[in-house]
Structure formats: structure tokens, C-alpha cells
């Protein structure tokens, strides 16, 4: 770092006088520091974004444009069964996300009170979040296979194998099995974020509540929940949008979305690379983005109008970050 620092500092020695003008120097810094990230943002986000919208109006493969079809690609997503089914499949993951949030809230509350070995529990429950998605796919393929891990453990609790379903083959169950995997993976992450939020609640509030004879449930309901509802909402939205993008574990476990487990994302991948319907795949991506934007706007409206008073209760850190985003700097 120091090498680079020196190299950049060497510059004013040759152009010292000109460079000494603060305004010149300021613009020099702005351009040199912002250029690379802006180019990357343009090339890898906004240009492909524009192209994506453009492509979505054509019937095309990777190399060949067949015809301009207007909004037909979009119509197709909402009318053809297999596309629409993939979208409905997200409902499973959303239901899973609800369960995941409730569990995360429960464990975060437990761990916020004095707990023996609390950090160990926290670490164990959180760790799955860091594991490679492909690895998780393999782990759970092994876990759910008939007669393997899950069946053996349930067998040890006295449930005979004949009474157990085929976790991955039975179409009534396999999506729930996959959703459970997703809960296993992300619950700890939600929990850690909730713990962070609960930590910022003033300790004296609990003492006062305990003084007044409030039990744990009352403490949760009247002290903890009101002060962290913002971050709970935020996590809810993130889980919902995340559930549309579930990819790796179901992809690996089911070998690419067999037996009716192709999530929206897997379907999009197949449309683009297997069926080579690039136009339709782009339309799917646009639809996904619109859904995400709708949820984000709903979230903003919810914060503004429903949680009006909740903004003041936001954990300190989040509050600060929000101001970072919103304030236009007015310094030099």
C-alpha cells in the first residue's frame, strides 16, 4: 500500500503548482478514484441490464435473432404451465422463510439472555450459512436418501422405515425437504442479525420490567419485539426475494430440478442454456427484478406508514447506515 501511496504522491512534485489548486486536486481525486468502480458498474450491471430488457422483446438464441415478438415472452411466462409452476414453487420457500424467521427470532431471544455456552450454540446454529452451496447440496442429498442419515436417525427414535416417505422422490414432500434445507442454511444468519438488534435494546428496560413482574413472554412482546420490528421486516423481505432465487442446493440435490422441484431460478437457467430461448430467459429475469422492486417499494412504504414510530427504535447501527445512504455530503 505504501508503495502505491508514494507513487501517487510523486505526482505533485512535477505538477506541483497546478496540482496545489484544491479544486483541481479535488476533481483529480474524484475521477481517479471513482473511474474504475464506475466502469465496472456500467459494464457488469447497467449495460447488461439494458440488454436484458432489449433481449426480452425478441425470440432469439445466443447468436441468432429470430424475430421481434414484443411482449409475447412475458405472456408466455404467465400463461405456460411450467413457467408459472416454477413461480408458484417459490410459495413453498416463502412459507419456509416464515418458519425460519420465527425460529430465528425465538433462538435470538433465548441467546440474548444469559445462557451457559451461548456463544457455542450461536456458532453451531450459524455455521451452515457459511458452507458452500454445492457442498450443502451433496450433504443433503446424502442426508435424505432412502435408508441414509435422516431415516437412520428417525429409526433410532423408533420410527420404522416403512412408515417414512421417500423424502426426495415423493412429489408431495420433496419440495418441503428442499425448503427445510434452505431453513437449515439461513436460519442462523437471521438469528445473528436479530441478536445484534436485540443487543442494542437498553438493558435497564429489562430490569424495570422484571421489577414489575413481567415474565419472559411479556418482556419479549413489549420490549424486544417493538424495538426490532424493523429488522424483522427487512429480513422478511430479503427472505421472500431470496426464495425466488433459490438455486444451488435444489439444483444439486435433485440433479437440476427433476420431480417438480425446478425453482424459478433453475427454470430460468434451463430456458437460457438448455432450451436456448434467450429471449424468454431475459423476460424471466426482468419479471424477477420487477417482483423484487415491488417488494422493496412495499417495504419502504411499510416502514414509512405502518412503522412510523418504529424508525426511532431502529438499532443504532442500522439507523446510522440509513443516514449514510440518504445524506448528500456537503463538505467541500
Amino acid at each position, binding site marked *: 500500500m505504501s508503495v502505491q501511496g508514494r507513487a501517487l504522491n510523486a505526482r505533485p512534485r512535477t505538477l506541483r503548482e497546478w496540482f496545489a489548486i484544491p479544486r483541481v*486536486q479535488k476533481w483529480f481525486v474524484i475521477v481517479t478514484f471513482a473511474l474504475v*468502480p464506475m466502469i465496472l458498474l456500467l459494464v457488469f450491471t447497467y449495460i447488461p441490464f439494458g440488454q436484458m430488457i432489449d433481449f426480452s422483446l425478441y425470440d432469439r438464441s445466443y447468436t441468432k435473432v429470430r424475430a421481434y415478438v414484443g411482449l409475447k415472452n412475458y405472456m408466455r411466462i404467465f400463461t405456460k404451465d411450467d413457467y408459472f409452476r416454477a413461480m408458484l414453487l417459490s410459495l413453498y420457500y416463502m412459507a419456509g422463510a416464515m418458519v425460519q424467521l420465527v425460529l430465528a427470532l425465538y433462538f435470538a431471544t433465548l441467546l440474548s439472555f444469559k445462557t451457559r455456552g451461548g456463544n457455542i450454540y450461536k456458532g453451531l446454529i450459524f455455521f451452515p450459512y457459511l458452507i458452500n452451496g454445492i457442498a450443502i447440496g451433496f450433504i443433503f442429498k446424502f442426508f435424505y436418501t432412502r435408508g441414509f442419515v435422516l431415516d437412520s436417525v428417525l429409526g433410532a427414535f423408533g420410527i420404522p422405515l416403512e412408515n417414512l416417505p421417500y423424502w426426495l422422490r415423493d412429489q408431495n414432500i420433496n419440495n418441503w425437504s428442499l425448503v427445510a434445507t434452505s431453513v437449515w442454511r439461513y436460519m442462523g444468519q437471521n438469528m445473528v442479525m436479530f441478536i445484534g438488534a436485540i443487543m442494542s435494546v437498553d438493558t435497564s428496560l429489562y430490569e424495570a420490567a422484571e421489577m414489575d413482574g413481567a415474565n419472559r413472554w411479556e418482556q419479549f412482546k413489549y420490549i424486544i419485539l417493538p424495538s426490532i420490528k424493523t429488522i424483522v421486516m427487512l429480513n422478511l423481505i430479503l427472505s421472500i426475494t431470496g426464495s425466488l432465487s433459490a438455486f444451488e442446493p435444489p439444483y444439486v440435490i435433485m440433479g437440476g430440478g427433476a420431480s417438480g422441484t425446478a425453482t424459478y431460478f433453475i427454470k430460468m437457467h434451463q430456458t437460457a442454456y438448455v432450451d436456448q430461448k434467450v429471449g424468454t430467459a431475459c423476460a424471466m429475469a426482468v419479471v424477477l427484478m420487477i417482483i423484487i422492486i415491488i417488494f422493496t417499494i412495499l417495504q419502504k412504504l411499510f416502514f414509512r406508514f405502518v412503522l412510523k414510530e418504529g424508525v426511532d427504535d431502529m438499532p443504532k447501527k442500522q439507523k446510522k447506515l440509513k443516514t449514510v445512504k440518504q445524506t448528500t455530503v456537503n463538505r467541500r
Partner: protein
Amino acid sequence: MTVIKNPEIQASLTTGQRAGRALAGFAKYFSLLLASFIAVLPIYSCLIVAFKTDEEYALSAPMALPKNFLDFDNFRTVWVDGSMGKAFMTSFFVVIMVVVFSVLIGSMLAYVLNRFAFPGNGLIRNLFLFATLIPGIAMQVTIYQIMNRFNLINSLFGYILLQCGTDVISIYIFLQYFENLPDSLDESAILEGCTYYGVFFKILFPLLRPAMVTVMILKGIGVYNEYYTANLYLQDKTKFVTISTALYSFTGPFGNRYNVICAGVILTMIPILLIFIFCQQAIYSGLAAGAVKG
């Protein structure tokens, strides 16, 4: 969070209340133990299978312990035949490059956005903010065309560049951190004759260390685990394998040899586990910051 137990309150509890507390305590530890058990069980099952020979794997019960915990044959197989050794080298190289580059450009951009008012400041912030709403992987169809045009398919450099380019969270973390660094630092340095470059590289950059650690860990783990674009842009698997693509390729040759696949899975987890053990706090606090990106 420690709730200070007031002795007066404790004394005033009736027996019924005390029994209730004991029951609540039991329920608490029971549920925590159960959750930890569920979190660990799938990993544990994978770990024990990784030490079984082919024959043992075929004959023994899935949850039976392996005969020999020092039998590293499966690990050797994935390291050499499954090219995990090569994959680790590639992944580590990519992670280091991306992390260094991300820290540099992220902190530089955050410095400019935080310390200078200029027309376009708000626009740049909004462009980055809006970019978080666009699902990155969904755009790969068109990004692929761009990568193709620049000849960046099957190029490690292209992959690294792409990983840096889609980075928004690190900019937020740095922006947030700059808010806490007082302007007086800059001003006194300028009075002493520093240029803005000097202010950034000599004064502020070293102070960013905590934010850097957070960005490096979160970004590093993300890149290390990344599969989708690695698979898409590093197509020549004989030349470029990352941890994820190497692992995914096990569906082929080792399809039924779960003992070998599990050895691969366990191997990929080791670096993550080490980082987790040593940098727990940085990961937890980084998550809180990254959460607000949406």
C-alpha cells in the same frame, strides 16, 4: 445481554414461579441443544462417511462410525483425481485478488463519496443502490455476451474482474465506516501539506482496518463459495477449476461413491471453519452492516 438478577426479586418468588422458571430453563436449553443437533447432524454424517473405505461404505450403516479415523485415502482421491488440490490453488488465488481489489476500489470510491460534495455524488450513490435490486445472477445471460465480446470466457482475469464488478456491499461498509472518521483528521493532514491522495493512503486507509477485515471476510467467503458464474465463465474445466466447480463435477465420476464426495465436501469446509473460528466477531458485525443493503 446480561440480565442482572436482583436478589430481592429472586427471594420474593413463590414456589410455583420458581418451578415455572426451572421449566422455562429446561425448555430453553433443550431447544438450543436440539437446534444445535440439527445444525450439526448433516455435517457430522458427512464427516464420518468421509473416512470410510468403499467396502465399508457399502456394507455399514450410514451412521456407524468408520473403523479407522486416520484413513485419509478418500481425501487423497479427491485431492488428486478430483483435482481438489488444483481447485484450492485457483480459488485461493481468485479470492485474494478479488478481496484486495475490492478493498481498494471500495474504499477509494467510499472516500470520494463521503468526503467530497460534487455534482453526481447523489447519482452515483443511487446507481449503486439500484444495482442491489437487480438480481446479479439473473443477468448472466447478457453479461455472457459482454464477456464473450471482450474475450473473457475461460479467462481467470475475466472471472476476477466480474467478481469485483458486482460488489456493492463492501462500498456500503466503507461508506458507513468513513462516517465515523472525523473530518479533522483530513484537515490537519492537509494543513501539514498532504495532498488528498496522501490523506487517503497515509491517514485514512490505515484507519479503515476493521472495515477492511469485515469486507475481506464476507467478500472472501462469498467468492470462495461462488458456483454459478465460475461454472459459466471458466468452462474449460481441465484448465480452471474452483472449489465449487470441482465439487460439482463429482456428480460424474464419483456419483455413487458418497464416501469420496463427502471427503471433498469436508475439505471445502476446512478453510471456512478456520476463518469462522478466528474471525467470528468480524463476521457477525459485518452481517449486520450488509443486511441493510436491500
